[in-house]
């Protein structure tokens, strides 16, 4: 099952500081370990919310508010997508998070992703076919997932 690992924002990620060389190294080693274990599907860091925006929809009409957004602890600073056997395995990976990140003070949220089979009958055969085609294109190496056959083995 796939999980999203959400690294919550803090004053530093919302500020102007970039990670140190040592943190880059720790994070690189951590990600490499997940890639080698064949569990890592995607991952990225988000720039501070001052470079972003929010869009609210009312009666189908969008309205745009530019960042920054004050509620730092509600914001996301980065994410990984991992494919593991259970929630426990996902938590075990998160417990190995680099200790230098956030100077040891970090909050992470893990959330399972929806899979096609979760949707039942409302997910019509036509939409399933469309989704499967998209996933197949991703698996062919043109998308965001590491193709099963190309995942490094231990």
């Amino acid at each position, binding site marked *: 099952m796939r999980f999203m690992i959400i690294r919550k924002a803090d004053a530093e990620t919302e500020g102007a500081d970039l990670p140190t060389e040592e943190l880059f190294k720790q994070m690189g080693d951590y990600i490499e370990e997940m890639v080698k274990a064949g569990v890592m599907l995607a991952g990225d860091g988000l720039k501070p919310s001052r470079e972003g925006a929010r869009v609210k929809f009312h*009666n189908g009409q969008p309205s745009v508010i530019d960042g920054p957004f004050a509620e730092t602890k509600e914001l996301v600073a980065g994410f990984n997508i991992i494919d593991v056997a259970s929630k426990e395995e996902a938590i075990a990976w998160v417990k190995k998070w680099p200790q230098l990140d956030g100077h040891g003070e970090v909050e992470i949220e893990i959330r399972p992703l929806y899979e096609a089979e979760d949707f039942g009958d409302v*997910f019509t055969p036509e939409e399933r076919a469309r989704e499967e085609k998209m996933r197949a294109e991703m698996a062919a190496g*043109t998308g965001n997932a590491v193709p099963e056959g190309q995942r490094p083995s231990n």
Partner: protein
Amino acid sequence: MRFMVIVKANAESEAGVLPSSEMIAAMGRYNDELIAAGVMLAGEGLRPSSEGARIKYENGKVTVTDGPFAETKELIAGYWLLDVKSKEEALEWIRRIPFTDGEEVELRKVFEASDFPVDAISEEHLKKEAAWREATQKPIRH
């Protein structure tokens, strides 16, 4: 430049209410447009926070708290990862999401390797990162 479009949670997404077949079809058409334009890198939906957990690190101690989490409007329900030329282009795509009422999305710029000082990342790490992205993150195309 890459942007993450974060769909915020609401009472329905947190209750695990599944979208109607009409909504799924509308989203499918929208995703097809993103794919046809070559701007879609990824897109996923998150199951309710009741099936997730939070892990906190404080003073070297790790604490795990199982969901659900009460602050619905702080939570995420899904996301797209887009590769576009500007924030304006990202906003143009967001305006066309087939949302009807009350939904909120947040647009955030994604860090690229070139955003970091040259000496902060080793050559070896940059190469590994580039190879991994080459294998995993290209626009989805028909």
